[in-house]
């Protein structure tokens, strides 16, 4: 287990195996390394923050701590969907410009935690445009399904926040 974890954070080609939390956005299934996840909470009232990119829905109070919420559908330029009782916020900890920060990702629903062997993980497909695949660690295959394994550090981490600072 311990070995697995270090392997996960390693991020090398064949070190991607480990436990992933899977969730869905529309018809697509995604996975996030379990070590990055702090907690999963239901949808709650979000205070919007002006002059931020559209996908920053705003901020919430996570037990006395204010954390930003990022709507993953908007981040991926997908159509938005009404929130329902399956809508979840996955709180992840990523490396910010000044130390780790917590950010909530708004997703349609959370599925399960799966163990994916590194042998089952393929490099992301080439779409021609680098932007499509740069946030993806790889494609995990489980029982015929394909999960898109996301690199949360890139999606919600430093890059986005820098962009935030620049745009503000």
């Amino acid at each position, binding site marked *: 287990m311990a070995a697995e974890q270090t392997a996960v954070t390693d991020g090398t080609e064949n070190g991607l195996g480990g436990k992933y939390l899977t969730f869905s956005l529309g018809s697509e299934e995604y996975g996030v390394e379990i070590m990055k996840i702090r907690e999963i909470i239901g949808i709650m009232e979000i205070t919007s923050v002006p002059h931020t990119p559209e996908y920053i829905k705003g901020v*919430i109070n996570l*037990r*006395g701590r204010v954390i930003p919420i990022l709507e993953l559908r908007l981040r991926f330029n997908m159509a938005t969907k009404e929130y329902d009782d399956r809508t979840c916020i996955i709180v992840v900890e990523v490396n910010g410009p000044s130390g780790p920060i917590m950010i909530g990702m708004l997703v349609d629903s959370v599925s399960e935690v799966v163990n994916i062997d590194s042998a089952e993980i393929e490099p992301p497909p080439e779409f021609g445009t680098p932007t499509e695949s740069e946030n993806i660690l790889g494609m995990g295959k489980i029982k015929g399904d394909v999960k898109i394994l996301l690199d949360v550090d890139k999606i919600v981490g430093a890059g986005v926040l820098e962009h935030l600072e620049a745009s*503000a």
Partner: protein
Amino acid sequence: MAEEVNTFDKLLNDLALKIMMVDPGDLSVVGDLILDLENLENTPDITTKFPHLKQMALDLRAVLGKIVMTDIDDSAENFDIVGQCIGLMEEIYRKNDNDSESLASFNKLLSTLSSSPAAAEKPKDSPPEEQAPSPAQSPSSANSAPATEAPDKPVILDTKPESLDFMEDMELLSGFIEETKEHLESIEVNILDLEDNPGDMEIINNIFRPFHTIKGVSGFLNLTNIQALAHSTENLLDDVRNNIRAMDESVIEVVLKVGDCLKLMADNLQNTIDNGAESYKNYDISNYIRWVKGVQGAETVEEPATASPAATSAAPAQTTESAAPPSATTPPLAAAPPPPPPKSSIAPPAPPAAAKPKTKAKKVGATIKVDVDKLDGLVNAVGELVIMQTMVRANPHITAIADPKLNKDFGQLFRITSELQKTSMSMRMVPIRQTFQKMIRLVRDLSKKTGKQANLVMEGEETEIDRNMVDSIYDPLVHMMRNSVDHGVQMPEERKRLGKPVYGTVSLRAYQKGGYMVIEIEDDGQGLNTEKIRRKALERGLIQESDNLSDHDLNNLVFLPGFSTADQITDVSGRGVGMDVVKKAVEKLRGKVDVMSEPGKGSIFTIRLPLTLAIIDGIIVQVGTERYIIPTIAIRESFRPRREDYKTIKGQGETLLVRGSLVPIIRLYKYFQVEAKCTDPCEAIVVVVESEGKQRAIMVDELLGKQEVVIKNLGGITDITGVAGGTILGDGRVGLILDLAGLVTAKMNYNLDLPAAVSKDSPAIKEVTEPENTADSEKTTESEQIS
């Protein structure tokens, strides 16, 4: 790759900055430079990518080494040449050109340096003319130059540890490092205290004890170097304790310098812990120990009988003159008249009978160190507790219970939790005293070095500042203090001529005002030369001849980057060393800097910092579904406007007539892009706020109430104009706190109509003065509107 390039960039920038800050005689900065160069040499890929750079770094390091060894004069001119060398290195790096032309000019520069007249043969160890002419030196130390200049930096022997067996117990070691640093800090405070109360045995004991502790623990940990140094200093102090010698200037100098050296070694140990044994540097401290022993030895020989008070006072005076201000031994300064000893420097040891223990030793309350994360955790948990409590209280089932006992208990519970909240909040605030105390030393050293006489007067050391800001404020403060002493206060003769007291006074004040923490640095020196600043600004195209700027506006130009480099300061006004650096650092903390100056009378530099994390008093307002908090301190009044007071300008700029002046309206819902209930100003409520002297009427739907709220950052979302942060409201939701200063300026761009008319006429001024003087330009705007 990119990373390496960045490292180059960073190191070179660092070098350039440091060489700018270096002062003749300030060898610790030279030490830093050497370290940086070493790092540069060790950057991977430097050999393949910038072979020249590597060679240059090597050469330059050798030269700097010579400066440290005083083979080369550490004069301003030489540092200037070093600065040019670094400039060349930067150029090579920027252009990425590896041709030998730049290298040639670099070498030429270096050779001028090494062949400068001051670099004339100067045997390293023998005492030349500046050596202390102390005839009564103990014979044993005659050839080891005992009472000479304090070694400014221990020489790094090699980076291979002889034995690192002290690394075995990391926990003990890091504990020792922490402790040592604390001890050293207390030593410094005490020694400065001693200058005010010479001969106070209690304080001398307070200085002696930490050295003793350091010696003991370092011996236990097998840190032989530290042990030896602490031991020799302890011996010296023991003599003082036993009235064998006086606590004179030379002893104080020893204690301070040894303290610096020990701190360096402690840092080195910390570095070793962090980065592994390879980074350990083996310092050669033998010169230090020789020096300490020399000071001790010279004295004991000089003064065989402790009885005669006359002899005692004569002896220290002599050593002081010869050995004291260490920088005076450098040729350029030695030529200048030797600075008179600072007022409290030498004092014969008070006869034991007269030694009234005026124990004014700074009372430091018992404290413990707590991990900041733990503290943050506590603060958050308490915040959560308060919110949960409110929610429980609001539960309909609970409110249905009509039990007086329950109500009373709830009241009690509320009191306790709010007490808990206040206490946990205050734990993150620390008095600014520690930062201020470091300035005492700085001013002392500076006035010695420059031959000026300056008294530091401090006020408001109790003012509390957020723990996180303490470190960030230190550097700008040092910069400004240095500026005030170095360039503000005139030389004693000059002051006498002008009829001013010989001692210049630099005041350092801290207080809280208007939701800000204010730090003021005031000197009674020469003030800024406004005319020269204006000429320089014209020259550099920062302003235009036609611009009609007030003296205050002109003075504040010193905070612009153009006024930053060394030669310009002397040209311009004798002030403004990298003041843009100060401005940048302060602005990073969302603060402001300002300078007010009167020629001949002095200057006041003001730093205003927000009290982050402090609980602010706010009015909660509702706009649509959102609630915002407006800091109460900025609110002037709030009311529902009357139709006849509502005026538009050119059909778009909206203003409101408030008490005879026209105040622009900010439609908060528009700016924050939310749906509001009221879109007609005369149905809504306006809150008139004032920020930076500008008034604005903020349109909101409703006022909900007044509450003390805790500013929290928005978890990574930063720099949103108009939002100072968030807070957690009673129902657990996040409310945004308005940043009025930002809102007021942002609004100007949003509704360009009103102020643009005036500022467009003189875009050049606007660009230059806006950062500092929006308030002023805005006032004129408003008055013009009224007329």
